[in-house]
Each structure stands twice: as structure tokens, then as C-alpha cells.
């Protein structure tokens, strides 16, 4: 590319280590926060004050912190759902639909076994909770299997199929909870029914047990990729499908496996937010917001370079930013959605930083034409 008297060239640099990547990410995040400071200024708010409000609400406030954690756990499950397929070189952007499917699966179990509203279910609470989790996993897996089979058998583009399933699932949830489907709540407010007391899972240290499940899963997935046979096969397929096939690894099996696993993990995200977070215990009217949040699982997964442990702090940060952002919007009377503005800028800057660190820009004086 020519720019005046200068010529700009891009050159790809060789790979960098995990630590370098972490440093790049941190610097990028700080830079993004700096940029968003101008948005605050524009709105007549001192950026320092704005950030102080966001962070103290998100991470220190006794009301804010649990909200942050709940969002972070949801995000974490979604980033796992992205990471497992991406290690096989496949793009799952259907976390939203799979999370909805998980929620529907869990609530279908609850409905079938009489755990609705003020009814008394026929089974003890613990067993029901277990079955609901199973239902959530099965729901996510079923929806994940579709792009998996289509990819493995017919090489259909997985981005397109997962995206389409997101839309379908969105409308399916709408039907189930407000357009006459069996999950409608009693109040007629366009929400799903509420779970009975006995199937609301107990809290551990004041947090939903799913938080601990998600942390354990991060460690398990890490070990899966680093040490196990199946992890090796997934990575081999992700690095070179032709070489993997030569090595006896079946493309159909891997495609199906990673998407079913991805669906399962996203299904748990749906279970977590709608059935395990205190004060909710239903599929709410604004369930679409969680579909939007699910997309940030892609960002977490990409920035963490497919490392499930590295996505923990990222999920926490993004969970906190959306939560705190929403809070200051109300408190400081900002006229715009600062939460998504923040996430959007962080995302763009992160991607840009990754790009600039991967490529070296060469600026040289263009030679005179003879």
C-alpha cells in the first residue's frame, strides 16, 4: 500500500508465547478503557469517576458482585462451548441457541415432573435437580449435534448452520414462554413458569453451585487437551484435517464430538442462568439479552487462544464490565448503553492489538520511479 511518499508493508511475525499474548491482552484492555474514557467525557462525566463506579459496583459491591459472578459463569460456559470446537478448527457461534436449548431441556424436565409454581413434585428435590441438569445437557447436545453431523457428513459450513439454529431457538423459546407454548407462566406477563422451591439448587458460599462446576470444567478441559487421547485427536484435526485423516482420525467423529460437547457446555450455561441463579428460576422475558451475552463467549475463547484456564479472568472481566456498565448507566443518567459500548470497544481494540503484534508494519520511503 502506498501512502504519500511512504510505502507500507505488512509482515507476519512468527508466533509468540502464551505470556506475551497475556501481556498484549492486558495492555489492549487498558487502552480500550482509556478510549472509552472519551465517551464518558462526551457525556459530561469524569472518566475516573465512571470507572470507579463501574468497577466498585462490579467487583466490590455486595449486590453487584454476585451479579458479576453469575454473568461470568454464563460467559465461561459459553466460551468453553466455543473453545472445544475451535480446537478442532471448527467455529461454533451457536452458543445462544444451544444455551436456549439447555434451558428448555431443563424446564421441560421440571414441567414433566411437576416442579412448576407451587406444585409439589413427585420426586425429591435433589433427584429433580440432577434430572434437570441432564435435561439441559441433552437439550444442548441435541442442538449441537445438528451442525456436527452436517459438517462431518456433508461438509456444510458450520458457521451458517449454528447461526441459523440460533434464530430458530430464539423463536422456539418465544413460543414456549409467551406465544401459547406449555412453558408459559401463570401471570400472562410473557415469562416462563417459575420453578418450585424444592428444585432451586442450594448455594455454596453464597454463589450458585454452577460457579464451582464451571471452574472445575476449566481445569478438566485443560487436561483434556493437554493429556488425553481424544484431546490429541481434536488438536490434530484442528491443525491439519488431511494429516489427521491420514492418522486414522475420523472427521465425522471429531466434528460430531466437538459440536455435541460444545452444545452440552452451552446447555449448562442456559441451566445456570435460568435455573440456578438466585432470584430468577425461570426463563425471563428478556432472555434475548443472554443470547447477546453468549456471543461474548466467542471473544473470550478467541482472546484466550483456546485455553480454558485463560478464559476465566476474561469471563470475569467481561461479566463485570457489562454488569457495572449497566449500573452506571442508570446511576449517572447516561443516555446510552455503556455496557455494550464498553464491550464493543474492548473487543475491537483487542482484535486490533492481536493483529499489530502478529504483523510488523514496515514504513519505508517509496523509491523514486525512474
Amino acid at each position, binding site marked *: 500500500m502506498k501512502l504519500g511518499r511512504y510505502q507500507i*508493508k505488512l509482515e507476519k511475525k512468527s508466533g509468540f508465547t502464551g505470556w506475551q499474548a497475556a501481556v498484549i491482552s492486558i495492555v489492549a484492555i487498558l487502552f480500550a478503557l482509556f478510549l472509552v474514557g472519551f465517551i464518558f467525557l462526551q457525556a459530561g462525566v469524569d472518566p475516573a469517576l465512571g470507572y470507579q463506579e463501574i468497577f466498585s459496583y462490579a467487583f466490590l459491591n455486595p449486590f453487584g458482585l454476585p451479579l458479576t459472578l453469575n454473568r461470568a459463569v454464563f460467559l465461561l460456559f459459553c466460551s468453553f462451548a466455543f473453545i472445544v470446537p475451535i480446537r478442532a478448527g471448527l467455529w461454533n457461534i451457536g452458543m445462544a441457541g444451544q444455551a436456549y436449548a439447555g434451558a428448555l431441556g431443563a424446564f421441560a424436565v421440571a414441567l414433566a415432573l411437576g416442579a412448576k409454581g407451587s406444585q409439589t413434585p413427585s420426586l425429591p428435590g435433589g433427584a429433580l435437580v440432577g434430572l434437570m441438569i441432564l435435561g439441559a445437557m441433552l437439550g444442548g447436545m441435541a442442538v449441537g449435534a445438528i451442525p456436527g453431523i452436517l459438517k462431518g457428513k456433508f461438509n456444510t459450513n458450520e458457521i451458517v448452520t449454528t447461526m441459523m439454529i440460533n434464530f430458530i431457538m430464539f423463536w422456539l423459546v418465544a413460543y414456549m414462554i409467551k406465544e401459547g407454548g406449555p412453558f408459559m407462566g401463570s401471570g400472562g406477563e410473557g415469562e416462563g413458569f417459575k420453578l418450585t422451591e424444592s428444585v432451586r439448587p442450594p448455594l455454596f458460599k453464597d454463589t450458585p453451585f454452577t460457579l464451582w462446576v464451571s471452574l472445575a470444567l476449566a481445569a478438566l478441559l485443560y487436561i483434556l487437551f493437554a493429556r488425553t*487421547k481424544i484431546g490429541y485427536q481434536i488438536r*490434530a484435526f484442528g491443525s491439519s484435517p488431511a*494429516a489427521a*485423516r*491420514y492418522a486414522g482420525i475420523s472427521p465425522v467423529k471429531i466434528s460430531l464430538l466437538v459440536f455435541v460437547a460444545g452444545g452440552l457446555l452451552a446447555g449448562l450455561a442456559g441451566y445456570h442462568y435460568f435455573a440456578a441463579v438466585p432470584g430468577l428460576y425461570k426463563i425471563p422475558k428478556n432472555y434475548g439479552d443472554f443470547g447477546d451475552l453468549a456471543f461474548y463467549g466467542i471473544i473470550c475463547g478467541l482472546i484466550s487462544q483456546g485455553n480454558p484456564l485463560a478464559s476465566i479472568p476474561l469471563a470475569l472481566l467481561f461479566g463485570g464490565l457489562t454488569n457495572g456498565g449497566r449500573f452506571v448507566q442508570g446511576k449517572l443518567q447516561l443516555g446510552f448503553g455503556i455496557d455494550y459500548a464498553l464491550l464493543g470497544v474492548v473487543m475491537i481494540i483487542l482484535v486490533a492489538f492481536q493483529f499489530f503484534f502478529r504483523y510488523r508494519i514496515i514504513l519505508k520511503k517509496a523509491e523514486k520511479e525512474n
Partner: protein
Amino acid sequence: MTDIKHGDIVLAAKGITKRYPGLVANDRIDFEIKAGEIHAILGENGAGKTTLMSILFGLVQPDEGEIYAFGKKVHFRSPLDAIDLGVGMVHQTRKLIPAHTVLENILLGHPKAGTILDMKRAGEEVAQLCKHYNYPLDLNAKVWHLAEGEKQMVEIFKALYRGAKVLIMDEPTSALAPPETEKLLESIQVMTRDELAIVPFITHKLPIVLAVSHRVTILRRGQVVARLDTKQSTEQSLAREMVGRDVIFRLERGKAARGRSILRVENLSAFDDKGAQALTDVSFDVHEGEIFGIAGVSGNGQQALAEVLAGLRKAKSGRVLFDDAEISHLTSLQRWQKGIGYIPAEQRTVGSIGNFSLVENMLMNYHFDDAFSKWGFLNEKKARQLTEALIAEYGVATPSPDVKARGLSGGNLQKLILARVFSRKPRLIIVNLPTQGLDVGATEFVQNKLLEARKSGAGILLISEDLDEILALSDRIAPIYEGKFMDVIPAESAVRETIGALMAGLEKKAAA
């Protein structure tokens, strides 16, 4: 730059050193190329030839040393700088876009392409160039229609059209059939004779070096050990300088007990990737303790045959039997487990995974082996031990088994793949171009390994374009042409010229 005379030094390197973790790939190398000469670089696998050429082309930055182009000190930050100064490179792995035409490929990335896209004029200029070098090319043909040799020439014309005065070629003939090789070498000679294109080229084929080059530089372990005039060299002397000892160019085929039939192929037909018929009604069998050689120029159906047998391609019709049991429907995994080993010709894209370590690459043929995993966990220690042992046995030049396969030189990667498959002790080995890219010492080593496997009772299906290799190793020889066997000839009655003619499709099968 028009005042270059024959014999002027056009490109020189002084004291070039390049270190990689754990090894010195280039160690204080001095090197120069003169206008109008063909300069061959020789050296064992991993000696540092590709590294040196990549430095001269700006692909790799040296740690120390200076480069002079046309008498001026230069600093190549990237290949673009090198191209600006008239240095071009033709890589072994081609970088053309198959769906585009020849002309489009030649113009692609040309510095002028953005500003003046006068296709007609450019086309005429390129056509002029082709005519000048007496190599007719259909500029409007799509690249995927071309033969390997023609693609190679497209790469060369691409570099020449950009004004290359120095042309670097890394193993230009290793993917070419013998007649294509000859044509290519003729063109190269024309280039140096009347123009000032200079071609330092790298190859392991000593007869080629002797036939076309003027001077030879020999590298050993990153250092220059000899600079010779080709006229005063022989195959023996070149090999001695390269390896540091005398190399015997003779194989002891010996006798091996021919056992029962282990592979039986009946009326096999298959398509290639483009959906064209690649293999037509081929039938043969391979016995235990036998090397069955398929001699042919690449692109005559060998690839499809090997892939069908390895379970990587569906046959159109016909049957395959292993050990008297039909295996046509088995997956590639099941075939590995039954004791069928496949060594593919595409070492970088199929035979190995570039961003995996050598240990992980070893696991490509062992991840499914119960001895290497327990409760779903891979036994890394065992895989590492095996890798280390094989690296030692096969003399793979690498600082550690933890380096990525991408960092291995071509020949060393080939050794690693061979070691991996042989170590499984397969009962049937399907091997496609086993010695491509190997130096003379390693070629000898690998051929002996094949003979060893034969002696221990394995059946071997050897696919090669190298007639000498086929004749030296095979018990029976099947020349293949356009997807059909022209004949099946026992080694005792094989005549070189006949087989050569059959490979070229010149004679019809004598008896049915």
C-alpha cells in the same frame, strides 16, 4: 543495471551465521554467485542449504553477516526488498493459485499490477519471454490444468517478469518427472547462456549437478566445506565431500523368501479429486517378502491407488483383499490396526503436522495404540522415549524431540515419517516416493530399510518415479500409464529402456 558482464559477482554473502535454538544452521558462510553461471548447492539433509537461500532472498534474517547485491551492501528486510533488487526465488512448494490463469498468476503481486493493469500488453510481454526461452506456455490456461513441470516454469517466468537477475531454486526437480526435468534444465541453461540470469539451485541428484552446473558449493553442518568446479568433480568426489566419507552407490538386494500373497487388488478403479478417472481396472497382488514396484511419472493414478489402499479414498469399483479378507470397506484406522502402513508423498500436508512437536507427530501413528494410552490418557513418556530412540536410529538432525515439525529440513522430516511408520512393523507397507528430498546417504539408508522390511517378511508396494530406485529394489515391476498397468515384469527380465518406454505410454502391453 545493464552493465553486468558475464562473470561479475552479482550476489555475495559474507560471514553469514544463523542460529536456531540448539543448533547453528549457517556458520560463518561465505558465498558468491557470478553472472551467467549455474551454481549448485550440495549438502546433506539439514546442512543449511534452504536456510542460506532463504537468507539471500530475505525470507530469513541472519544473526550475523552481510549481503552484497551487484557490488552494493544490502539489507533485505523481506523478500520484497530482494525482489526489488532483482533476486527471485522458486520454492519447492508452489505458491500459485490453481483456479487462476497462468497470466494472472504471473501478474499477481507484481509491483506494477496495482497501477497499470494493462493485461494485453503484459500478456504480450510474458509471451515474448516464453518465446525467448523457447518454452511455450498457454497463458490463458487455468493453472490446475498444468503438469508439475509447467507450474514450475510459471513460477520461473513470474520471477523473470518481475525483473529477476538472480534466480534461486530449492530442489526444482524433486517433484518433476524425468522428461519434465530435462525440459526444465534446458530452459535454465538457455537462461544463463545468453542472459544474465543466474541460478544457484539446490538438489540432491548428483547426475543433474554434474550435467548442468558450472560450480558447486558444498555445505556440511552449516559450514562451507568445499567450493569446486563441476568439471573437476565426479559423483564419488561430490558425495565424499558432502558426507565426509565414501558412499557406496550399491545396494545388496539379496534374496528374500517370497511368501504367500498378502495384498490382492481386483479390478480397481477410482476417481481423482477433480472427479476424473484416475485408475482403471487395475489388478495385482503383493506377496510377503516382496517389493512390488510401480514405476510411473507422477499423475498417472499412483496417488489414487495409494489412497484407496490406505483407506483415504473411495474406490469406484473393484475389491481389495488383505490376508485373503476383503478390506474395501475398512476405515484408515482399521487398516493401521491390521498392520497396513502408508507413507504418503505429501510429507508436509499429510504425513506430518507442522505445529506439532516431533513427539506429537510420532503419536500420529500411535495414538490409537493401546500400549500408548491408558484410561484415555496418552502415555507421553513412552512416546518421548520412542521418538528419541527413532531420532537416534534414523539420524534425524534436530536439537530436541520438542521442536515443531515445521522446523525440520525436508529430508529430516522424511526420515521422521519413515521411522514412524517402519517402527510399527507393518505387514504391508505402501510407500509413495520414499526418497524424495533425501540426500545420497539418507537415500541409501532408507532403501536399505525397505530391503530389511522385505527380508523380515513384509510386503511392500513401492511407488516411485525414479527408475534407478525401482530397478534396484523391486522384485516385480509394473509400469503405470494413465491409470493402467502397462505390464508386470519380473526383476530378472526387466530392461531399463523397455520400462522407460512403457512408463511414457509408448508401447502397448505385449501379452494380455
